[in-house]
């Protein structure tokens, strides 16, 4: 699971996809998830990490994480593996 290398992400969570010209803004938790993704972490590793940082159950977090990962895929931001 890897993001496209050419995706630009600013400190404040502004995301630009040069391939499609689309831009998005991320909320703070999404920024943390993206950073973990860029570090090469897997879905499960991200879930373990984030649930240790925040008071949320694994199942609730996975529900949101999967939604987010699908969106990244939908917007062509994930690398084909």
């Amino acid at each position, binding site marked *: 699971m890897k993001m496209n290398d050419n995706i630009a992400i600013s400190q404040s969570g502004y995301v630009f996809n040069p391939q499609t010209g689309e831009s998005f803004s991320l*909320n703070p938790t999404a920024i943390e998830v993206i950073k973990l993704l860029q570090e090469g972490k897997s879905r499960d590793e991200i879930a373990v990490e984030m649930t240790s940082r925040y008071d949320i159950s694994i199942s*609730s977090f996975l529900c949101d994480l999967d939604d987010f990962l699908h*969106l990244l895929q*939908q917007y062509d931001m994930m690398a084909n593996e």
Partner: protein
Amino acid sequence: MLPGKVGTDAYLSPVLDIDGVSVDRLMRDFGSPLFVFSEQKIHSNIQSAKRAFSTRYPKVQFAWSYKTNYLDGVCKIFHEEGSWAEVVSGFELEKALQNGVDGSHILFNGPSKTKEDLQKAVRLGVYIHIDNLDELYLLSEVADEESERPKVAVRVNLDAGLSQQWDRFGFNYENGQAWDTLSKIVEMGKLDLKGIHCHIGTFILSTKAYAVAAEKMARLALEVFQKLRVRLEYIDLGGGFASHNTLKASYLGGPDVAPSFDDYAEAVASAIYKVPFKTSELPMLILETGRALIDDAGYLLSTVLSNKRSATGRRYTVIDAGVNLLFTSFWYDHKISPAQPYSKYFEDVTLFGPLCMNIDMIREFVCLPLLNRGDHLVIHNVGAYNVTQWMQFITLRPNVIMVKRDGDCSILHEAETLSDIKRKECL
């Protein structure tokens, strides 16, 4: 400044209570979904409407439009505030009578009165608003049989300058049909001609249209006096004032565009004063205002069932209240508020109801904070036409409650049960 930038920002504040009673408590006690009416709001709406008209015109009478919301608990508040009843079927007539309204305070409109309806109305001294000639002749038959002189008004349709003219009810003003009918009634001598009635449409945002209608009706009333020697008791301008809802495809939100009761009253009263009646002979002005008096007194509370993504990545949120309960979502973009504090992150969502039917969409585009399963929403301005036009379809209809002025809550209409439905099945 762009209008979009000054639009109402109420979308942004969570609604935690209704008249001081917490939404969570209401849903815990009475279930979800749940219709909630504010007694306080109903009183204040009718009081401000009455004030707007009666400070400008000497004789004003409101008549509660039963079809807008005929829950007894709601009707009784209007009657308590002095409103008569405006009914459009034998069923509504009976409901008004059972609510204790005297026949002489009931206006009977509509195109579908049966002979039995007319007999009953005649015996009780109800004002019968004649819609068509077949009805006129039937009523004259009933008058003979009952040896009574029924009190009648003629329903008139007219060109008030609106793009859509409602000409399917009553007799046309401009082409002379209305005049012919009035003359015929006077000539027949069997019916007691008391008034003229019109209803130019619904959700009319133009006060000018009311001015045009009021002036035409007043001129007609004066002509009836001058040429037919009958002094009409009243001019009834029907309903149609806009509520604070937002019509679909309207750029500005409802509260920004709907005229106030004062605006409508000013237009109507000044138009009638253009017609040279002697002050002592001014006809009574009847108003059958429906939605503008009740829409914002009604809320629909609902619970989020699930979230998902569309084929194109759009967020879909499914809630437990659908078009089966919210008929008006077909023509309004109802205002939706979250009922709990939320994070500052919003996303455009499409809001669906719970029915397994593609048409069951409450809002196609609405920007909401990210809601989770179990979160609550408040849907605003649902007081008119929903608890009369709701359907028993796929699921059961929920409780309808009233938050009273003293903070107590009482059930106006109990949630349906399976046995309510099965009781009517015979095989």
